[in-house]
């Protein structure tokens, strides 16, 4: 029996020591065998991040009118983790919600289904966010329904009704601005992947699965400012994803306010006048296909108004655009309203280009005080080039050539410049005066506007020809050899013609011929520009030779009204022309309005008190009706505004666009018949506002019409200006 206890003791000792070895074994397993998993777990598995979206910043016009705002709406959200803890997986809650919200049960279920799981609908119906986040199932819910849910909490476990900011476009004065505002869209998986690859951790950066980011316009260009930073709650979770505690809570940082240079009231007028010009064109049996109008402050490049036709209701994006709607926006039949004609549309500048030709001539040996011949037509090369409507003006000054827009004067100059460069056999380092002057005026390069949509256009000339040939000659020469067999099957005649062109392009395509030079000098040929670029050209002439980068945004403000970032003007280039040349062009453009092609539309305008410098243009487009251009600035003696309007397939510059431009000046300067009343200017205070709007304590901007909003008047235009502040 002595041994019995001894054996028991030894067994006990073995058991106790084996317990210790068990611990060492387990320690080895955790630290060595699966150590890496736990090291990763220390970053990933232990924590879950729940993001509170930041409220997107407001976009205000130059005096503080909200152009894009937020509206407080009630959003009903469901926490699926709570629903799943019930025996029926929340079926009864969903059915009650369905009847209260008047939503089909299936739709609620679809919205609660995580994307990528079995039976999930496509985004954005399915839920692409974190499963720890309450999932919104109904937005903009009636307050009464929300109250009903809140009062019967026990009937709706896991259901929350919260005030949420919904993007809203108040459209003060019925302003459209679709192409300036742009739009936001859901972030794509690719963008999130890219962000991950670049090593931005989800906590540091804003982009989350359910985020929306700017896709065009100001919403895109200033996205980083507008978006703010989401709040994050870091939850500690166990392996079974049960929430075990809150580790960290950071409040969202609301988006900043973007203050535009655009004046909503002026913008509304410009949009209206562009539409009027289109109507005017159509009344004369023109197609009036599209158009654009730009008003800039010549002293700093601020864009005060910029309209595009056709446009679309920017609110179309708010509820999530349907694919049908989106197709309509890019449908050529409806004129592709998605394209901003002002910054993306490319058109031949026609006669409004002649200011550049004049500058090029003056700086290249042509005396501005000489007399030039303006015959009805001119033979250059083997081709006859005619004046508009084949009218001749005889011997005239350069100023008169601009006033009456005589093409032949410029043909002659262009031909001489071309010959000076060696003609078809160019000298070494040809001057290419016209082409280089065009570049100096900002053509052929992006305007530098603070919008993502910015087309650089192109400048016709020797340089362009060479580049274009180098890019395409391989295709041309191959076609020249092999022809167009696929076209020949149906239309042998056309195939033969195409091959002939290919042969010509292959062998001659790089040659800058006299005809090319001549066409370029009157803004035809290969040169194409955006209306915005031409506005900057005329602004440069007006302000003494500075080409500014246009700016639609004045400043970024914090929601508390302090400034976050001033958006400064930037000089794009200085015109390489003499003071004398500039003065001469300025004087000539004033003459256009008094006794030239710009005079008829300005009959009755008090030009003696507000001189206006203008230039008309009527562009020829092969197979289409002419393009109506009207470029201008005023007051000519102390320039402040440049206004350019364009209507494609719209007839003449003076007939179609000019009357609308005149109306814009009348409203800017407060011209009432023969009297001038600066107080009735469409601009608040009579001129562009360079100060920042005041933000009230509640985070809402103060703006001129706010009293009308608070004491509603019959005016319907601002009735829907209800907004909420962007600070949370």
């Amino acid at each position, binding site marked *: 029996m002595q041994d019995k*206890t001894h054996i*028991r003791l030894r067994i006990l000792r073995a058991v106790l020591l084996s317990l*210790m070895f068990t611990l060492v074994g387990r320690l080895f397993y955790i630290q*060595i065998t699966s150590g890496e998993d736990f090291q990763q*777990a220390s970053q990933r*598995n232990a924590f879950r991040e729940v993001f509170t979206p930041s409220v997107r910043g407001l976009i205000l016009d130059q005096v503080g009118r909200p152009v894009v705002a937020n509206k407080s709406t009630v959003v009903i959200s469901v926490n699926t983790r709570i629903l799943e803890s019930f025996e029926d997986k929340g079926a009864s809650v969903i059915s009650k919600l369905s009847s209260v919200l008047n939503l089909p049960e299936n739709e609620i279920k679809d919205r609660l289904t995580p994307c990528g799981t079995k039976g999930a609908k496509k985004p954005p119906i399915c839920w692409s966010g974190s499963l720890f986040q309450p999932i919104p199932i109904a937005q903009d819910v009636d307050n009464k329904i929300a109250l009903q849910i809140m009062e019967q909490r026990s009937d709706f476990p896991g259901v929350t009704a919260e005030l949420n900011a919904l993007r809203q476009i108040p459209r003060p004065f019925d302003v459209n601005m679709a192409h300036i505002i742009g739009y936001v869209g859901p972030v794509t998986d690719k963008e999130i992947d890219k962000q991950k690859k670049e090593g931005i951790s989800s906590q540091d950066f804003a982009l989350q699965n359910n985020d929306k980011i700017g896709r065009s316009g100001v919403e895109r260009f200033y996205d980083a400012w507008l978006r703010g930073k989401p709040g994050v709650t870091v939850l500690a979770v166990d392996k079974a994803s049960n929430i*075990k505690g809150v580790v960290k809570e950071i409040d969202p940082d609301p988006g900043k306010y973007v203050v535009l240079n655009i004046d909503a009231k002026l913008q509304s007028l410009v949009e209206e006048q562009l539409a009027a010009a289109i109507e005017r064109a159509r009344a004369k049996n023109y197609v009036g296909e599209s158009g654009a109008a730009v008003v800039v402050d010549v002293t700093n490049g601020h864009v005060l108004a910029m309209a595009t036709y056709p446009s679309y209701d920017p609110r179309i994006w708010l509820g999530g655009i349907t694919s049908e709607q989106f197709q309509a926006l890019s449908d050529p039949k409806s004129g592709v309203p998605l394209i901003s004609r002002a910054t993306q549309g490319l058109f031949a500048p026609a006669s409004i280009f002649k200011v550049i030709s004049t500058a090029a001539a003056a700086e290249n040996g042509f005396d501005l005080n000489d007399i030039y011949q303006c015959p009805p037509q001119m033979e250059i090369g083997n081709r006859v080039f005619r004046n508009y409507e084949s009218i001749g003006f005889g011997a005239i000054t350069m100023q008169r050539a601009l006033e009456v827009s005589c093409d032949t004067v410029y043909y002659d100059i262009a031909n001489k410049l071309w010959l000076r460069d060696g003609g078809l056999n160019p000298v070494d380092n040809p001057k290419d005066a016209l082409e280089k002057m065009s570049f100096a005026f900002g053509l052929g390069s992006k305007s530098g506007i603070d919008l993502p949509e910015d087309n650089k256009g192109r400048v016709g000339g020797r340089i362009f020809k060479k580049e274009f040939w180098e890019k395409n000659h391989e295709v041309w020469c191959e076609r020249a050899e092999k022809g167009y067999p696929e076209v020949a099957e149906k239309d042998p005649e056309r195939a033969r013609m195409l091959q002939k062109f290919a042969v010509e392009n292959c062998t001659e395509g790089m040659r800058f011929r006299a005809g090319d030079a001549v066409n370029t000098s009157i803004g035809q040929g290969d040169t194409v520009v955006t209306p915005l670029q031409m506005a900057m050209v005329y602004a440069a002439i007006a302000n003494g030779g500075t080409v500014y980068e246009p700016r639609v945004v004045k400043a970024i403000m914090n929601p508390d009204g302090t400034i976050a970032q001033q958006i400064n003007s930037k000089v794009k280039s200085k015109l390489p022309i003499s003071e004398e040349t500039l003065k001469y062009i300025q004087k000539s453009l004033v003459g256009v309005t008094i006794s030239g092609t710009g005079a008829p539309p300005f009959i009755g305008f008090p030009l003696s008190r507000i001189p206006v410098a203008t230039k008309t243009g009527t562009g020829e487009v092969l197979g289409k009706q002419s393009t109506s251009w009207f470029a201008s600035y005023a007051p000519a003696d102390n320039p402040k505004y440049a206004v350019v309007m364009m209507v494609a397939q719209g007839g003449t510059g003076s007939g179609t666009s000019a009357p609308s431009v005149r109306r814009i000046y009348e409203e800017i300067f407060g011209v009432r018949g023969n009297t001038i009343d600066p107080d009735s200017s469409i601009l608040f205070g009579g001129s562009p506002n360079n100060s920042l709007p005041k933000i009230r304590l509640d985070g809402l901007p103060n703006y001129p019409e706010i009293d009308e909003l608070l004491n509603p008047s019959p005016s319907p235009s601002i009735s829907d200006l209800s907004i909420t502040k962007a600070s949370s």
Partner: protein
Amino acid sequence: MSYLSVNKSKAIKRNRVNDSFFIGYDWVLITSALLLSVIGAALVYSASNQRLQDAGLPSDFYLQRHIFNLILGLILGLIVSRFSFRTARAYAIVIYAFAVIGLLLVLIPGVGKSQGGAQAWLAFPGGFTFQPSEFTKVALITLLAMVLTEKRDSELVPHDKDVLLGLSLAGIPALLVLLQNDFGTVMIIGATLLMVLVASGTKLRWVFGSLFAVLFAGYIASQLNFIKDYQLKRLATFVDPTLDPLGAGYNTLQAKIAIGSGGWFGQGYLNGPQTQGKYVPAQRTDFIFTVAGEELGFFGATLVILLIGLILYRLSKIALKAPDRFGRLTAVGVAGWFAIQSFENIGMNLGIMPVTGVPLPFVSYGGSSMFVSWMAIGLAVAIGREIDDRVTPIIR
């Protein structure tokens, strides 16, 4: 047996090296426990310095108190070791009575102090607190050892009557500890007493019967939600207020992550991101082992376990050679207690045992545990002191 001769020479050597005051002291046992306590001090500092700094307190606040506790524990252990272990047998009933009174006092509102949700502390002047439930562990070991060996030196196994008496007496304080919601301590007491019972040589039906009783009690207790309730309250006392723990799973996961990221050599002392980032709750007490795991790595953490293993080995050796059956059962009880408590504590750190609020002996911060652990070492040393290596122990 060959080990006898080895030990004999060692005993003689000890006689020569040390003066007579320390004759028969088990220096391997004492050094192991001391080394653990010192490692514990280092780990307590690592676990607490950031939290203390954040709270605006001196970062070595808990380190100093741990060292103070250690010194006090060493003195208490020394005092105990100076008595014959038979004194413990003689006063076993008195010690038991003290423990029961302490446990009762704790339950009286105003006298007992609630700390971290558990009504388990007695407050003393000067801000010191004492946890009678820790003391109960030693009290019950000596009581059961006494009851199971009382006046029956001529008989090899305890009577059924004695077993029944011992278990009944043990049941009273166990119930009182359960009333404090200290489920972990109850389970450790139960498992320890079970081992004493096994060592006493009693019939196996008693062993399995009480094993079943302990398991059943555990099941009932968990059904009554003792565990969850207690932990919820206890975990709410995190130093870091931003942590709002809602359950034990968080602790386990954090502990496992901390240990798992240690690798072979650890992240370096005072350099563990989980530890210094204050992610692991209750780290200077119940989850002290995570500091060793994360900062000292597999080697450091294994050293801690091996030191405990060495203590267990020495205690079992004392049990095997104890001069009488009371000494043997007492040594078994102490070894069983250290083993079970260490296994439960490190096991919950490693995620293989449920989370209960029991400290790691010598290593965790906490005065009561430190004092009682060193008193138990003192008791074991006292038993070992009376082993006569020259004779084969005859135990009746």
